[in-house]
């Protein structure tokens, strides 16, 4: 049972990691990165590492989405204003 759980957890992490790289659009990639963080948390819990799991939960729930989303919005706004200036 433990072995099945481990194999499933590792496979999900691998698949989601490759998905994050393959997704090109930044907003969609942020969402997939959220799922990847969740998969990492589950893997760390199955590997009996609660401190690491708490670290990863907190970081991928709070810090990563804020930093990424604000940058995406800002980049889009700058690009939009630059296009307006040109036209």
């Amino acid at each position, binding site marked *: 049972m433990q072995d099945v759980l481990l194999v499933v957890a590792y496979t999900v992490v691998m698949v989601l990691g490759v998905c994050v790289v393959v997704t090109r659009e930044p907003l969609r990639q942020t969402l997939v990165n959220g799922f990847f963080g969740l998969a990492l948390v589950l893997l760390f819990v199955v590997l009996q590492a609660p401190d690491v799991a708490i670290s990863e939960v907190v970081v991928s729930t709070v810090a990563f989405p*804020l*930093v990424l989303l604000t940058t995406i919005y800002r980049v889009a706004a700058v690009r939009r204003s630059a296009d307006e200036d040109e036209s």
Partner: protein
Amino acid sequence: MTHVQRRLAFFVPAAALLAVVLGCGLTRLPSFGLPHSEYARYITEHAPAQRHVSNIVSSVVFDYRGWDTAGEELMMFAAVMGTALLLRSGRDEERRRPTDVMTSDAVRIAGAGAVALTLLVGLWTIAFGYLTPGGGFQGGVVAAAAALLTWVADSYRRHRAVTPATLVDAAEGLGAVGFLAIGLLGLVVAGSYLQNVLPLGIPGTLTSTGTIALLNAATGLEIAAACVLIFAEFLEEYVVTVPGPTPEDP
């Protein structure tokens, strides 16, 4: 050839070589799940008795490998300083202050409760870090999240009022300096830096583990302040994109 194709032409053979090297190396590691580290066996056997600690990972972070943690703290400090420098310098002076006040009462009430609850959970995670899973690193980010929730629940002005720049900068410096100063205490009293020299107390209580408790608190302060700083800098970038016009705050 485009730039990407040129880079890929270099990357694919290098990646193949790296995959071969990684494969040879990783398959020669001890089998997954078998014990192979003498150091780990020694630590798990002797740490609870030597340091009166329940969370063995926290004794490794703040005591046995405390020097590595000092390096991580300084790394965090330097990265935050770099971020603040980059983002604050590229900013033009005159900026209209956005007034994005949250008007929905349900969100304000739920947000007020959420801020208090998150701050409490963050401080609790920091405080009990050496007894249960948790610690200064994890709890610090949770406490910074509580400050962030004031922006979601109320307005950007309230968030800036709760986290004034001078206070946050000072708190971050204090956390980093506190960590290094407690290490100096060990140097002065026992002759080696970061040695655990305070009384160890009864295992399982908050006053146990000597300097681990103090280093835990200093780390929690520094990580919380560093994360608040990072979030504030990025929020400052974001609120420029909030569309106007902006009426004055009532």
